């Protein structure tokens, strides 16, 4: 009598064997295989007893709150381009621009310097930049860490990291310009360097062989970019405190 192999018994347990009837019949006739199958069933039943913790009543809402915060901004602008809301907003904006133009023409000259002083308050600009850059560095760091820690025997798909790197690159221009405007050369310099690294990632093939992955990892390590981001991130967080007291508006909204 040919006994069932352990593999065949596993397939039988999951209902994926080729000939279920034959396996069933064999199990009825063969005590050895029946014992082995019984042992397999008991072990897998014990595995089933491993509980999953309850993430809480409001879990769905809390996941959405976290996810929503990190959704890429560009998609939010895609949908309602031609809706009436946008048309109305556009008309209102045009009205405001005309009003601003007329006010500028006829308002007394003496009031202007004060208004300009508020608008170009360098301290305010710097605080805004710190909050935004802190968030930006954190997201960049996540992409780089994922790549630095990735491990693959075959080709590794990095298209998700590439998409995020692309989003980050398109965002960084605004931050670099603001850094330039507020005269923060350290932040500007790091953002420029980070930009080159992110561009390097977006231009890589979307599926990396283990050799290419190792090569990319070596390049990241050679540039020490992760270390620089950590240092800058920690500096930014330390300086952010006064900005946090100013309000709850998010970094992206501010910029």
């Amino acid at each position: 009598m040919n006994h069932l192999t352990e593999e065949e018994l596993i397939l039988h347990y999951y209902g994926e064997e080729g000939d279920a009837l034959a396996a069933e019949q064999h199990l009825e006739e063969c005590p050895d295989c029946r014992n082995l199958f019984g042992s397999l069933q008991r072990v897998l039943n014990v595995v089933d007893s491993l509980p999953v913790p309850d993430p809480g009543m409001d879990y769905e809402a809390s996941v959405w709150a976290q996810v929503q915060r990190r959704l890429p901004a560009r998609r939010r602008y895609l949908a309602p381009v031609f809706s009436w809301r946008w048309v109305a907003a556009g008309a209102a904006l045009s009205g405001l621009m005309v009003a601003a133009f007329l006010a500028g023409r006829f308002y007394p000259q003496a009031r202007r310097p004060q208004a300009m002083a508020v608008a170009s308050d360098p301290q305010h600009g710097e605080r805004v930049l710190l909050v935004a850059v802190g968030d930006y560095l954190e997201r960049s760091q996540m992409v780089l860490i994922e790549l630095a820690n990735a491990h693959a025997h075959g080709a590794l798909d990095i298209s998700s990291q590439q998409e995020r790197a692309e989003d980050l690159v398109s965002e960084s221009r605004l931050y670099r310009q603001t850094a330039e405007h507020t005269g923060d050369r350290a932040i500007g310099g790091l953002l420029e360097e980070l930009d080159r690294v992110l561009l390097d990632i977006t231009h890589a093939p979307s599926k990396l062989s283990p050799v290419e992955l190792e090569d990319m990892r070596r390049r990241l390590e050679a540039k020490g970019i992760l270390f620089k981001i950590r240092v800058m991130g920690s500096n930014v967080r330390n300086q952010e405190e006064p900005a946090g007291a100013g309000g709850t508006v998010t970094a992206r909204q501010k910029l």
Partner: protein
Amino acid sequence: MELNDVLAVSKARSGDTDAFRVLVERHSRSLFRLAFRMTGNQQDAEDVVQESFLRAYKQLAKFDERASFGTWLYRIAANCSLDLVRSRKRRSEHLAPPAESEMEDPVASLPSSAPGPERMALSSEVRERVAEAMRELSPTERTAFVLRHFEGMCMEEVSRVLECQPGAAKHSVFRAVQKLRRALEPIASPAK
């Protein structure tokens, strides 16, 4: 009116974040279960869930609307978990067993007059042995086993998630079950 997945995906693709919210709220709990079984850690599972939805959102354009959104999302979550488990393994960090505070002890909820194997199977010692045995599996074996055993995917589907041949997926499941059997046979045996 409640949106079905197909409609919600279609709306989310055109930038409707409220539609995406429906998908997040509908699938987050089952994704958490999958991620917890794969990572063995509540915090990691929560991170995986968030990361999976973000990846899904960015890849919505690539989603084939004829397929099941849930399965596609599971695939993303399984890959996220796999990446995380691999990176942990690579750094030789052992996954901590779930803290006592993270879950209720199921034994406590059993009636005290229920002795026998069920009670034994749910004891914290057994639970720890099972968690330990799961941690001993390689990331691929663990993924293959979780998908086959807990999620009920067939070997063909498991191979698609793992991006390997069905034969290779099957062998990962075999190796996982064999390892679990070796580790857990003593406590699962009726003589105990």
